[in-house]
């Protein structure tokens, strides 16, 4: 096979490990979860596009977070809803999220730790 794949040092191995680890992160625990409302109401309001935007943004910034879906939670008028759950922090719900809003939510909430107050529609203490 190709010479190019050959690892020539422990550092080469560690670089490969880091890269390969991104691919299996979904199977390991992390402190951050982003939940996208994926009931019929959410999908109709554009939740799938929002979820794609979330995943692209996480991949681009190499952020460790799990993205999961949830059915209708009864706040259909505010869909698409996106919740961010972080260990030790309140669960923050954003409403009427559009794909264009995602980079700012991720930059301010996940990277800087500051929820984007003006888009927040709910907050619950997580357990």
């Amino acid at each position, binding site marked *: 096979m190709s010479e190019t794949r050959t690892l020539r*040092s*422990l550092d080469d191995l560690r670089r490969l490990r880091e890269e390969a680890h991104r691919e299996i992160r979904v199977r390991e625990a*992390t402190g951050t979860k982003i939940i996208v409302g994926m009931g019929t109401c959410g999908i109709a309001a554009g939740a799938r596009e929002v979820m794609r935007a979330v995943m692209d943004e996480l991949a681009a910034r190499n952020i460790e977070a799990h993205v999961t879906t949830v*059915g209708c939670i009864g706040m259909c008028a505010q869909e698409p809803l996106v919740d961010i759950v972080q260990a030790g922090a309140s669960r923050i719900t954003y409403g009427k999220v559009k794909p264009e809003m995602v980079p700012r939510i991720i930059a301010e909430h996940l990277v800087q730790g500051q929820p984007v107050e003006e888009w927040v529609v709910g907050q619950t203490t997580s357990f």
Partner: protein
Amino acid sequence: MTEPMYRAHVAVCAGTWCKALDEADLAEAMLAEISRRGLAEEVRVVRTGCRGFCSVGPVAVIYPEGIFYCRVGMPDIAEIVEETLVKGRIVHRLLYAEPETQRRLPRYEEIPFYSKQVRIALRNCGVINPDLIEEYIARGGYEALGKALTTMTPEQVIDAVKQSGLRGRGGAGFPTGLKWEFTRKAPGDIKYLICNADEGDPGAFMDRSILEGDPHSVLEGMAIAAYAIGAREGYIYCRAEYPLAVQRLKAAIAQAKEYGLLGERILGTDFSFDLRVKEGAGAFVCGEETALIASIEGRRGEPRPRPPFPAVSGLWGKPTNINNVETWANVPPILSQGPEWFASIGTERSKGTKVFALSG
């Protein structure tokens, strides 16, 4: 990265037992349904080795939540995709039910069968795709080999294995570090390593689970020992009745060679080690080490009296270190997490964990 980032993984057991139950290939069907629903770029299907809970198989685990579905069949697939992967809801009827209370337990960590286990030799089984060396590396694989080659002398490696208290998992329970030392000290330039993967005891499938679910753990353990003992060549003697194990071992060896983790000048060092698989001839007695060696040499698999022990005169009369599959799989974590950690687990006289197979 150009690779799509997947938000969910569906781990489908592809061990011998679940595959035997699942005549139509669940993983394939799951993938087809996921594609049909337009989720192929978000959800990945991973074929893993055995998770050990075969009585409720075929099992599928949905990550990141860790939702554990039991006895999954073709008719369940569309519902799993629709409910769990699209809408984030649990399909309750597929969850594990606690036998006494019939309470449904959604996540595999909550199931007592798993929550009470400490997995060392089985650390990756059921979690990674055994056919992808990258997944083994992602979990820290080959790091212990790299550490040994670049920061430890062969004697230090042997000392670590001695200190760990690891004893052979093939039956006799001989201290592994001591055996390595005997072989290292035996006179001779050419030395061999053998992995005993004959597993002849009826109903036993401990070694098969490791070989099918995490073959690289055995390869790495052997490469570490080769460095410690001074061997350049090794054999994995695997019973022919384990075709999937043979296939996964061969694939694993080929991938390790491609990455330069086996073969010449491993990780850019002077150390070279090569491995090959030898299929057994189907005799229970060939699991005994001297009979096994005779079988590799092409002779009748008959035990001979010891001494001389294989450590002094083994394969083709050369000093040979033979260990069991599970013994080898324990070696990398001993080096990466330290012998003290390993010695802190287990009983007074036997350290670490032991894999058990219950059948019948």
